[in-house]
């Protein structure tokens, strides 16, 4: 994945300013202050935001031009699972992701996924009755069951307790595909292979997580 001098401007306000970076690690953490542009950066990876100038290449494709194709390959997990869950019940939501399968197979797969993510028996409950952690698990399941070739997660653990956060983190960090995780949780960032530090719309450092986290702590002091 490569960003080449990418800028993003909304109403004359620069949000990203000349970001050039190449993510090659299999697990990359994106850290930085509130408003530094992390979420915007993450959204560019699958074409949800398009650069005002500069170019982005993801899995060999240009997300601006080839949005549909890129999105079918990039799974995106949002902070707020409530915005991401589209159907009234977990089973329906998973079925939606598996739209391309024949119906009978879909029902089977849905049941299997529910079990795998600890949601067995809750398939037909209203989503609003799931706990925060269960909702985040469902959102993640709905993304991962489409077998994406790259996963981007924007603060996927912020609202979670120790066990749920660890569970989601373990799931993300052991995926067989590359993962980009935007996070304020520096412990989680430390478990990645590389970290990128944003500040004021720029990438100010990139490298081994401990060093990058150290810089982040220093500039936040």
């Amino acid at each position: 994945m490569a960003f080449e001098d990418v800028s993003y401007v909304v109403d004359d306000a620069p949000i990203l300013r000349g970001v050039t970076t190449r993510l090659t690690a299999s697990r990359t953490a994106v850290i930085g202050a509130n408003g530094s542009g992390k979420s915007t950066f993450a959204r560019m990876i699958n074409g949800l935001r398009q650069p005002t100038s500069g170019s982005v290449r993801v899995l060999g494709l240009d997300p601006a031009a080839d949005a549909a194709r890129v999105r079918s390959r990039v799974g995106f997990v949002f902070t707020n699972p409530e915005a991401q869950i589209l159907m009234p019940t977990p089973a329906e939501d998973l079925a939606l992701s598996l739209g391309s399968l024949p119906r009978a197979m879909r029902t089977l797969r849905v049941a299997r996924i529910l079990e795998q993510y600890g949601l067995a028996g809750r398939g037909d409950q209203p989503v609003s009755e799931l706990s925060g952690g269960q909702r985040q698990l469902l959102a993640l399941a709905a993304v991962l069951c489409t077998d994406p070739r790259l996963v981007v997660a924007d603060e996927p653990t912020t609202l979670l307790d120790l066990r749920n956060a660890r569970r989601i983190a373990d799931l993300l960090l052991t995926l067989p595909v590359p993962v980009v995780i935007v996070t304020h949780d520096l412990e989680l960032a430390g478990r990645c292979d590389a970290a990128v530090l944003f500040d004021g719309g720029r990438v100010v450092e990139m490298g081994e997580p401990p060093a990058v986290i150290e810089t982040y702590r220093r500039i936040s002091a």
Partner: protein
Amino acid sequence: MISLYRAGDSILHRIPAGWKLLALAICALAISITRLPTTGTIVLLGAATTVLLSTGAGLRGTALAWWRLRWLIVVLGGALVVFVDVTAAVQSTGRVVAMLLLAEAVTRTTRTGDPLDVLRRLFRPLRVFGVDPETPALAVSLTITMVPVLAGLLEQVRDAQRARGVRLGVRAAVPLLVLAMKHADDVGDALTARGLAR
């Protein structure tokens, strides 16, 4: 949200909001029950335009107000010419335009907060029924605060759907409604916690 109020120091700016609203209501009533003749309609239009000019709208602002009504004038006037006659067209269209110009004059000269005070005063008598006169004004501010929040939720939902690459049609709006209701519950708690409502 940008208010339609324009700062200034005209006579209309200085008249209290309550009186202006009352006067406008009386004008609306009078104009719709008295059937003015054609000359009277033209005088009325001139008067309304003068009132708008007097608020400091300037020639440009006044012309703009007329320009915004162009379709109304053309279509309403046109329809009446075709289906009734020219006199009816001038009289009816003229009445509507004059009312709209007068209303614009009041809107331009009345700060958003002033009608809130009028609202409070209007609701004061309801106190005897246990209605807090502050509530309507609070509700108005609350709604103004919520509009950008909802717009933000809408964007979240839109992003999430595009990212999942599924076509849902109508039901795409369900998560927005869910988020909006959750937001309402949270705001309800905040209202109570801050001692502003039961």
